[in-house]
């Protein structure tokens, strides 16, 4: 087994390329890989195609920083803090390509990618304008039952970036609590960056193999990033910081304000 523990800078340099399809873990303002998001912005990656289910700050920051050319998503919002300002701005100005999904299609698209199949049947969607505008969801009749469904295309992310609780230096990842799509993403992507709160000795992994949620061979880089999800939450370590998010919303109302936010919280590191 190869040691994959490396600094965040190296992980992003080596495993995120301009133009990559990038799946980001977490949901809403919970366990999003924010340290990685900040590093991607610092490295000025371009033309990323972001993939995620119900995303917020992470997507909005990357969009505002000009890193993103396309988004595949079911929802991008700051929950009670309102619409995601950069996402809204870029979408309304036609500056990013919109691949709108519902949770059921984006999740199954990631799952199909993990399963190594090019598409997967999914229920629902018929009658929704989401289907009418989609290039990645098509109507389909089951040849066994005659049932009308849709087929969702596997999005096959190039990179998955997730923030987890623990890993050993080889990339055996322990992920407790809400899994969201993180495990599927790690199995779906060609390259996988995992930032973790704690690095644990390999012996601890071997003592509890049933706790290994993502075995090492899926993982390209392990980064020790305590509080790496901040200002989103990492359950059993820290909660989200709503004051920070409020400041974000206030500043990101304008492109200039967003630059100020980046200066204060991203470029300073």
């Amino acid at each position, binding site marked *: 087994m190869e040691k994959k523990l490396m600094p965040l800078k190296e992980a992003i340099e080596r495993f995120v390329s301009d133009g990559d399809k990038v799946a980001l873990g977490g949901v809403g303002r919970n366990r999003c890989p924010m340290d990685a998001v900040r590093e991607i912005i610092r490295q000025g990656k371009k033309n990323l195609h972001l993939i995620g289910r119900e995303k917020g700050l992470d997507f909005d920051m990357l969009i505002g920083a000009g890193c993103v050319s396309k988004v595949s998503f079911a929802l991008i919002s700051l929950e009670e803090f309102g619409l995601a300002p950069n996402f809204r701005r870029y979408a309304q100005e036609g500056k990013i390509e919109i691949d709108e999904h519902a949770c059921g299609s984006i999740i199954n698209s990631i799952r199909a990618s993990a399963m190594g199949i090019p598409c997967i049947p999914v229920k629902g969607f018929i009658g*929704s304008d989401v289907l009418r505008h989609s290039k990645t969801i098509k109507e389909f009749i089951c040849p066994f039952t005659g049932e009308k469904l849709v087929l969702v295309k596997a999005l096959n992310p190039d990179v998955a970036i997730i923030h987890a609780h623990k890993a050993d230096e080889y990339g055996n990842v322990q992920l407790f609590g809400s899994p969201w799509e993180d495990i599927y993403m790690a199995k779906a992507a060609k390259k996988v960056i995992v930032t973790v709160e704690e690095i644990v000795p390999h012996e601890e992994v071997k003592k509890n193999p049933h706790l290994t949620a993502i075995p090492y061979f899926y993982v390209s880089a392990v980064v020790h990033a305590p509080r790496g999800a901040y200002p989103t939450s990492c359950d059993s370590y820290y909660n989200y910081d709503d004051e920070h998010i409020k400041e974000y919303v206030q500043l990101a109302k304008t492109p200039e304000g967003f630059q100020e936010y980046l200066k204060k919280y991203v470029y300073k590191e």
Partner: protein
Amino acid sequence: MEYKVSELMISLMAREIKDGDKVLQGLYSPMPMIACLLAKHFHAPNMVFFNTADAVDPDPSEVPFSTAGPKLQENCVAYLPLAEVFDLAQRGELSLIFLGAAQVDMYGNTNLSVIGDFSRPKVRLPGGAASAFLCGFMDTVIWVPRHNSKVFVEKVSFITGQGYINGWDTRERLGIPKGGPRKVITNLCVMDFEPKTKKMRLVSVHPGVTVDDVVNNTGFDLIIPDEVPTTEPPTKEELEFIRSIDPNNVRELEFK
């Protein structure tokens, strides 16, 4: 006992849950979250409660602001990724989900995607989360904290969540197996859908609200029955539970 409209709406949503139901609560769903906990605490102890924290039957000491937050894992019996809750839904085993909307039309179609043109929208909304998927085959209850004619429109700009599409038997004709919006619960009233035309119909007005208040704040012709009762208010026990589990007024989030 005095109560706020958020508390009334939570009580109404809870009443949509029957004992034994499997119910999913989504992201940014503060009132549905509390409604699920309320139902499970009182009349639906055997309800299976799924949430956006992927926890099964959590029993939190208090509710969090983010409805996917770590608090929503407390005292759960298992974790189940949303993917698998959706699998249950596809198997016909999920009973109900509460869905929000920026626009709702008379057939219960909902929009959470765009105001204006899809490719160059006037307003880019967040996206419908589970809507286009789940509304295509299961029962939903729509909740609207601000009942006005900007929300209740003649025609939605974009059907994110399928209601009854063009009404009548449109769903059947499109091959949509079943389901559809069962109720619409707002800050003014409760509505359902007339079985034949699938047009929205007033069921009850909240205490202090008149039928005219509802009509004047709805951008399409609502079916008004001859008699419109007043909505049953929450009980003292319900209010006590809501206030004890929500000391931080998470339930007021959508009214600020």
